């Protein structure tokens, strides 16, 4: 006698085998979702590394330094190396070929300084040249330091304590710990793993529903004594497993990627160990379940694979926009964020990256909503299956 579980198991194993034989699609999914995250992370670390190197290089590009021996003296005392600007520095700045802002000194800098005339210097950069722009603050602070030193010397010469110029003193305190600082850079990680789940499950979700209709294999399937619910359970199980498999692979892919980080400070800040990976997978599992069921429910109404793909764009778009929500939302977390799947999980995954402990009460709403979506979608597919086969 054919039981529910035997039929569901038969469907599950067949769908899994079928999906895993689709090598070309799996390869594309693997490259786009599993390899993409680590790749971007490594590329980003290379960028941070370059910026750090530039900051460490302590170089300053100046035009007309011959006219300013006292500034040169100050800069050299700050262990800066003064470099003369190339002749076409302005064009190079515009074309982003020059990676440093350029300090332009007037010819009468030294004499102006000696006469207390406050000579004007130009700090030239291009806001379209991000490399050069990132150095602007550093150079400004350097010049401000020189200016303060000169002013202090003048006050001392007149018998005034330099402290009288500083009515208020500012001490900066950064309360972000290293993990939360790194989370700024790594906040796109949840986005990558969520998209991996979507793209991992998408093909199987469409193939087991709309694909089955398009091939004309749904009708023979429904002519077997297997119950509709067993068929749907088996199909959903297979799609969910593939989505979860891709989620696990993409989470684990960040572990070796970590070793490849070039920036030492980023490597020190970015902590993605086994514990974080397990948290990620645990948070992603309910999302994978809900998304698989939802995409199947949308696809079962479509007669062809193509039509189903077009209809499922809505889901893909929604999921891809959710983590971006964090970018637009400057007001921090709101309680309702935890009730809206993708967003709830992406919020919690960011907490994991910041090293904040997660309470069960925070994780529960997202899981609950995911389970509701899964159950509703599966019930819907079960009802549609028989109706759609005859169309």
């Amino acid at each position, binding site marked *: *006698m054919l039981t529910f579980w035997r039929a569901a198991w038969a469907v599950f194993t067949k769908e899994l085998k079928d999906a895993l*034989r689709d090598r070309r699609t799996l390869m594309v999914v693997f490259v786009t979702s599993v390899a993409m995250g680590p790749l971007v992370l490594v590329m980003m670390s290379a960028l941070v590394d370059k910026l750090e190197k530039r900051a460490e290089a302590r170089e300053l590009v100046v035009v007309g330094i011959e006219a300013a021996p006292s500034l040169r003296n100050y800069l050299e005392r700050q262990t800066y190396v003064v470099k003369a600007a190339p002749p076409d520095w302005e064009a190079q700045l515009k074309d982003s070929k020059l990676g440093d802002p350029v300090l332009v000194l007037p010819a009468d800098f030294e004499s102006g300084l000696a006469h207390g005339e406050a000579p004007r210097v130009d700090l030239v950069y291009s806001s379209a040249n991000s490399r050069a722009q990132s150095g602007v603050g550093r150079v400004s602070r350097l010049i401000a330091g020189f200016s303060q030193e000169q002013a202090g010397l003048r006050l001392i010469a007149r018998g005034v304590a330099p402290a009288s110029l500083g009515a208020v003193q500012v001490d900066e305190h950064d309360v972000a710990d290293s993990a939360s600082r790194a989370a700024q850079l790594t906040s796109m990680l949840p986005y990558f793993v969520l998209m991996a789940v979507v793209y991992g499950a998408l093909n199987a979700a469409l193939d087991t529903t709309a694909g089955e209709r398009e091939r004309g294999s749904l*009708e*023979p399937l429904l002519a077997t*004594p297997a*119950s509709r619910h067993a068929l749907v359970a088996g199909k959903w199980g297979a799609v969910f497993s593939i989505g979860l498999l891709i989620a696990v692979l993409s989470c684990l892919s960040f572990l070796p990627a970590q070793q490849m980080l070039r920036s030492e400070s980023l490597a020190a800040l970015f902590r993605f160990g086994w514990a974080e990976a397990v948290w990620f997978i645990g948070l992603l599992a309910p999302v994978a379940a809900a998304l698989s069921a939802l995409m199947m429910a949308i696809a079962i109404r479509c007669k062809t694979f193509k039509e189903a793909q077009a209809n499922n764009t809505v889901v893909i778009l929604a999921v891809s926009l959710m983590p971006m929500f964090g970018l637009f939302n400057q007001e921090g977390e709101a309680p309702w964020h935890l009730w809206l799947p993708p967003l709830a999980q992406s919020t919690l995954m960011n907490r994991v990256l910041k090293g904040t402990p997660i309470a069960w009460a925070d994780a529960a709403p997202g899981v609950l909503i995911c389970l509701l979506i899964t159950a509703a979608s599966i019930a819907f597919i079960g009802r549609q299956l028989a109706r759609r086969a005859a169309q």
Partner: protein
Amino acid sequence: MIELQALHKRFQTGRGRQAREVTAVDGLSFTARDGAITGLLGPNGAGKTTSLRMLVGLVTPDAGEIRVDGLSMAQDPQAVRARLGVLSDARGLYPRLSARENIVYHGRLHGVPDDLAQARCEHLANLLEMQPLLDRRTEGFSQGERMKTALARALVHDPANIVLDEPTNGLDVVATRALREALRTLRDETGKCIVFSTHIMQEVERLCDRVVVVAQGRHVAEGTVAELCALAGEDDFEDAFVRLAFGAAETC
């Protein structure tokens, strides 16, 4: 044995103001005996496919009863489906699975143990002369090869009743002959009850023990080919069919 009694089915087409009711099957009754091949013969749109879909349980009839080996479709659809082998007009295969995997998959869904399903697969491959196809993926199969695989899939659980919807559609002469031969073997050696629908006279003449003529969803005439010719008063079966099917439509 398959019994259809006074089946009715109406479909709604269009929406809103353009909604229209179409009667697909209008009180169709017939009985198909064991050890015989019963042909359901009718022009396009006569309601053959709808009738067979109701018989399989894909479409619920508005009225009437379907019994297979005495079991009622309405009361125990699962038991009925287990006694039916169906080759519908949709005979899609899974292209990434081999023919054998396609066949065994349906065996599992019928609750056949794996080793038995494998044995049945070999047996059917011999019957349908498709041994070399078994372990090839079905991607790129010809129409004839697809039909053989789909038929083997429909018969994997050794059903007592076989239902085929226009099985020779798109088949060449060789494949058609092979199918005919296989159906005769199934009838003569295992005494199956076979029902198939077609609109091709030749099929019916060569194969059917009994013919049910259907037109506009109604049962028009029934009998052997010779009986139908006598009934219509024609020597040629094609002429007899036209007179029975379309003559009936005109008088209605």
